[in-house]
């Protein structure tokens, strides 16, 4: 009689552990998916930038430095590998782009250019998409990390070596230094 009770307890325990393990695996996959979505959007932004610089060049003859800094930041961002490096490089690129948007205000001809306008909508949207995919990624990371830390899933996570994921924060010193201007 006793061994039946023991068997039932063991079975219930096993089911419980399996479901916790599966939950962790699902969350980890969601984090990975979310990361690949960020990657897609960052690549898209990298692809749009040469076009933007090319269009702007003809109008912004006095802003060679600004345009060069964008090109340089783009190259650096494309080379970055880890989550932390990418976040830093992308932060720098974001900073360079917001500087660019500030000076664009001085070039009404450029602002009226149809090609530039559609590029701007694409870039704005890509930036939004980067932001939203980052937001989604960070939410998923938060959930995964919470699970890994809290009882009782922390035991299962420790047993099967689930690692906490890194948040993706775009806060770079360069970005923070850009003054906020409202028009």
């Amino acid at each position, binding site marked *: 009689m006793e061994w039946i009770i023991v068997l039932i307890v063991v079975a219930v325990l096993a089911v419980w552990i399996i479901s916790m393990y599966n939950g962790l695996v699902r969350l980890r996959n969601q984090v990975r998916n979310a990361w690949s979505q960020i990657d897609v959007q960052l690549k898209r932004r990298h692809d749009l930038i040469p076009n933007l610089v090319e269009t702007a060049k003809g109008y912004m003859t006095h802003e060679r430095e600004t345009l060069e800094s964008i090109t340089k930041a783009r190259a650096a961002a494309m080379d970055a590998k880890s989550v932390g490096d990418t976040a830093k490089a992308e932060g720098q690129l974001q900073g360079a782009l917001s500087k660019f948007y500030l000076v664009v205000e001085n070039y009404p001809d450029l602002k009226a250019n149809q090609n530039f306008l559609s590029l701007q*909508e*694409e870039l704005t949207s890509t930036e939004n998409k980067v932001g939203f995919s980052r*937001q989604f990624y960070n939410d998923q990371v*938060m959930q995964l990390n919470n699970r890994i830390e809290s009882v009782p899933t922390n035991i299962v996570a420790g047993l099967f070596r689930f690692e906490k994921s890194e948040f993706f924060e775009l806060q770079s010193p360069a970005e923070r230094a850009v003054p906020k201007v409202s028009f």
Partner: protein
Amino acid sequence: MFELIRANKRKSAWLIAVLGSILIGVGYAIGFLLAPEDPAVSALFVIIAVVIWIGMLLASMAGGEKILLKTAKAREIQKADAPQLYNIVEEMCIASGLSTVPKVYIIDTPDPNAFAVGLKPERAAVAVTTGLMAKLNRDELQNVVAHEIAHINNRDTLFMTLAGVTVGAIIILGELFWRSMLFGGRGRSSGGGRGGNQGAAVVMIVAVLMAILAPILARMLYFACSRRREYLADACAAQYTRYPEGLASALDKISGQAAQRTKKAETSQVLAPMYIINPLAARSRKAGWFSTHPATDDRIRVLRGMTSSASLEAYEQAYRALHGKESVMTPSMLKQSKDQSVRDASKDADAGTQRQWREVQDLLHKVDQYAVLACACGMKMKLPPEYDQEKVACPKCGRAHPLPPEMLAALAAARMGRK
């Protein structure tokens, strides 16, 4: 987010189960009233009820979206037609974690509104009216789209359709009951009482009440769920965009417009709960028992009550602050991160209503395959595909323009495509 979707699915399954049991109960009650002594008749009516139900479910599952979009006169657009709208839809898919981008439709009407359909996210579609595109700025449009994406992501488009169909089946059964009572059923049922048997009389009254009240009850249950889903979609929209004020001001603009409207919009009852605000109802202060949507002012007040954070918890708190003890979300839905701060309004979000109207008109012309011919005086002539002449005179300066051959060919092709 996924916690919320799962919690929602569970609740929806409950709703369908409850409505299904009401349906079966009504079937049984009808059978019982028609022939109290014969259980076979009751069984027969239960089977009839189930057959009607399943038939209607199958009909709505086999391409119901297409029919709904067609009755709303919605037309599908591609990214090249309206890049901004399309981008916004993509943005909200990313923010919500929806893996497939729904199809995008536009409806040519000045009434600002939007709806979503789709039993599965893979088959989903979002439709917005041209009036909505013209009147809202980018942030507001983004929030309205977020609300619709939330309906898709929370599977409201699936379960509210199934629930709506079930309620429809219950109502049909109720009608059936009245008809059968009028034609011949009456004589037999009064003879069935046979006097003195009090227990049978009580059962009889209960059955009559069931047959009368069940359709009303089912409808009330359905509408209560619909209203709750609206709050939930608002909460999710705020969470996706991190900008609740955008949805609040969008709702304000939309409902302000709806109050001016004189004639009722052309739409079906089934579709009404899927709109951002009910196109069939007037703006009211308070939602009644049979409203598909909560009062718009109430939704706006809850959204404006979220000051510190854009998370679901913040929405729940704002809701409680307004409604006392009631809540819209169960604890299992709230299992997620708390740190979701509200963002600032995007700059340059407002392109100006005038410009937006022009852009929407251009979009419509593009979808309708108009040809555009520029005159030397600066006039742009937009020719509909119905235009089958080879020349056109400028209405401003009177210059005659022969149409280039490729334009003639394009117009002819558009004419053919329309037929």
